[in-house]
């Protein structure tokens, strides 16, 4: 295996796993805080039990996320030493702030877990909010770095080096905030629908019970609200990409020729050597309309750049289709579920509804991973867009393939452990005594 491919694969695997751990770690605190605030307002012990279960899930995911996050911070140097040498000073600020957000999250998670009977109720709820907010902030800071790699700003290049660096301009780069919002909403969507799916499945297996019903309610509320906002955020992000990274837009829409009034393609398979996309449903003027809010806007095609500088158009295009497809299905589902909730509740008594929840529950994660592929593969062959090529940033250390294989095996083990632990501690059926007695510890 070629060193560059091995290094990219290792980074890719590390991020793909970290994203799953981290998004659950971002979303569960929000859901646990909602559950606790419901308990504090209506005293129903089922909400308390749920808050404690989700707090335990947050702890497990936080520990695993801390581990996989440490690995990533070292891998930045191990795999991309030249990138860090030149860009470290520019992107250090969001990383440092992320470190502090992470620290705050750890401290308040500790207070949340051990403070049920030891701090005043309002403060306990406040600690939950701090955990939820600092989790979101960590996600935002890290995504801002990725935004900078896509739209690098906040410096001048003098003799091949970054000079006159303005760290906050770099941090709030054009892609940063749209990407960060998209990422946070994706975290809520993915974890919300996945949690709802798990509890839907349990509800079918265990028969009707308040614990699972309440869990589905909160999870679908979080996931559904997020996916509805996601279409707005996706639009903002797409317009940013159209303006700032036209070649990335061209490859995710597999637009080979520059044209005015370009169509929006649904599905289809790009053939880069023939420079055409077959089998797609084309909506006339759609792409121009979506990208610039003008049906006759000029869309730059891949023909503007040499073919050697194209990303892997086929994978990027397909990943983009998967992300948009999953997002659309979830959006429709959220709208339908909202309407049904209004008309025919309680929904949990309808088996067909629960089955539908189970079927669509993995789509959030599919969309999340596909979207990550779009942004990462769509940026290639650049590690810093139009400034530094990925192949120039990779380490000169030989045999990266070995570390790639070892890390992949480790992550696989870690993934199995997490799933197993969550199944044992977070979603296992509650004993009836836990639901009847108030203030009981899980």
């Amino acid at each position: 295996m070629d060193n560059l491919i091995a290094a990219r694969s290792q980074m890719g695997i590390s991020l793909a796993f970290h994203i799953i751990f981290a998004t659950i770690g971002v979303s569960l605190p929000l859901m646990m805080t909602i559950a606790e605030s419901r308990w504090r307002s209506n005293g129903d012990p089922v909400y308390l039990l749920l808050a404690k279960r989700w707090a335990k899930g947050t702890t497990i995911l936080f520990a695993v996320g801390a581990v996989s996050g440490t690995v990533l911070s070292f891998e930045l140097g191990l795999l991309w030493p030249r990138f860090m040498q030149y860009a470290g000073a520019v992107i250090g600020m969001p990383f440092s702030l992320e470190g502090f957000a992470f620290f705050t999250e750890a401290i308040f998670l500790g207070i949340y877990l051990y403070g049920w009977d030891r701090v005043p109720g309002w403060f306990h709820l406040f600690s939950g909010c701090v955990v939820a907010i600092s989790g979101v902030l960590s996600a935002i800071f890290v995504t801002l770095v990725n935004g900078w790699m896509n739209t690098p700003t906040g410096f001048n290049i003098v003799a091949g080096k970054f000079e006159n660096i303005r760290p906050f301009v770099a941090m709030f780069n054009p892609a940063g905030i749209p990407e960060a919002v998209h990422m946070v909403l994706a975290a809520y969507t993915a974890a919300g629908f996945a949690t709802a799916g798990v509890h839907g499945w349990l509800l079918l297996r265990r028969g009707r019970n308040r614990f699972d019903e309440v869990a589905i309610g909160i999870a679908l509320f979080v996931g559904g609200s997020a996916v509805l906002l996601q279409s707005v955020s996706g639009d903002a992000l797409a317009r940013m990409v159209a303006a700032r990274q036209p070649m990335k837009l061209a490859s995710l829409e597999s637009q080979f020729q520059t044209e005015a009034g370009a169509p929006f393609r649904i599905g289809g398979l790009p053939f880069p050597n023939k420079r055409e996309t077959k089998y797609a449903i084309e909506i006339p003027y759609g792409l121009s309309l979506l990208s610039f809010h003008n049906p006759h806007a000029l869309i730059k095609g891949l023909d503007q750049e040499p073919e050697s500088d194209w990303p892997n158009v086929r994978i990027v295009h397909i990943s983009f289709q998967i992300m948009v497809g999953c997002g659309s299905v979830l959006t429709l589902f959220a709208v339908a579920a909202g309407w049904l909730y209004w008309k025919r509740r309680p929904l949990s008594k309808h088996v067909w509804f629960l089955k539908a929840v189970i079927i669509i529950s993995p789509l959030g994660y599919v969309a999340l991973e596909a979207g990550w592929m779009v942004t990462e593969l769509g940026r290639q062959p650049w590690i810093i867009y139009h400034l530094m090529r990925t192949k120039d940033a990779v380490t000169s250390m030989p045999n990266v393939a070995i570390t790639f294989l070892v890390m992949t095996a480790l992550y696989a083990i870690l993934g199995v452990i997490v799933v197993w632990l969550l199944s044992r501690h977070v979603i296992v059926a509650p004993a009836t005594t836990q639901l009847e007695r108030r203030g009981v510890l899980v």
Partner: protein
Amino acid sequence: MNAEVILAGVMLAALVVYSLLGGADYGAGLWDLMCSGLRREDQRDLIARAIQPVWEANHIWLILVVVLTFSGFPSAFSYISLGLAVPIFVILLGIVLRGSSYVFRAYFTGSVRTQLYWGKVFSISSCITPLFLGIVIGAISSDSVLVKDGLSENGFLRTWFYPFPLIVGVLSLSLFAYLSACYLTIETDNAALQSDFRTRALISGIVSIVMAVLTYVIAGDSAKSIRDGLARAPYVGLIECSAAVAALIAFQALWSRRYFRARMAAAVQVALIVAGWGVAQYPYLVRPQLTIANSTAPPNIVSALLIAVAGGAVILIPSLILLLLVFKTHRESISADANSTPV
């Protein structure tokens, strides 16, 4: 004083805190491997109970050191990552294995056999990380990490695989073990368990002193410049003497079973040793090429980082104190529960 020197000082301080908190957690892993005798299970329980609520938070200090290194001294981070890629990769393996096996063991509810198996993974990986952290420290203190045009001139093994870094690795493992044993003596009220860990603290303390002397002797061969740093810099002598005094106090306290004093003195001793290394290393970050001055990020970045660190500290320090207060009352109530339960 320059901003970049202050930033390096902050990094050194974070490294000291990491040694005192995270290091002790690693040391506990070594003792977990060496649990023996009649009270083997009690020893394991004590270790698990002592590190459970804190190890993730302790771990974050290392992330802080890494992040500040690559933000404030990007070329140092780049050189270390390249030249010492192998030990750093091993550190990562240790971190992942320890973290995941610990989480698994802590929350596992199945058979005891499986739990013991994961316990082994936990304790072995706990020993690997401090050993290789020490190796990295040893390697950047001697003159072997040389990077030119993105290539490591000494390859990937000769940068660290020779006596000096290896001895520093063993030294740091023994220091962490010593620290951990001292801490563990006051995590229990059981006198027999206390004296188990007292013996361990005394043995590992002696081993670490032997290793420290050995490090100094071997440094004459391959790490002359850090040895000169140790001998020459004006404050280093003072720090060395204070560390020696702290060591004597810790030993005397252990001997006379005054565990609280022993814990404090051991922490001061290890903190001074790490700080002493930092001062002796000054002004270098990676000997012999990179100093604080020639690898620093531009001044505005360094000041911005310092402001971020100060702002973070304003939020973090009160929160940490609050957390400790909550834990303390939590622990007391647990021991109160334990006392009131009829046996």
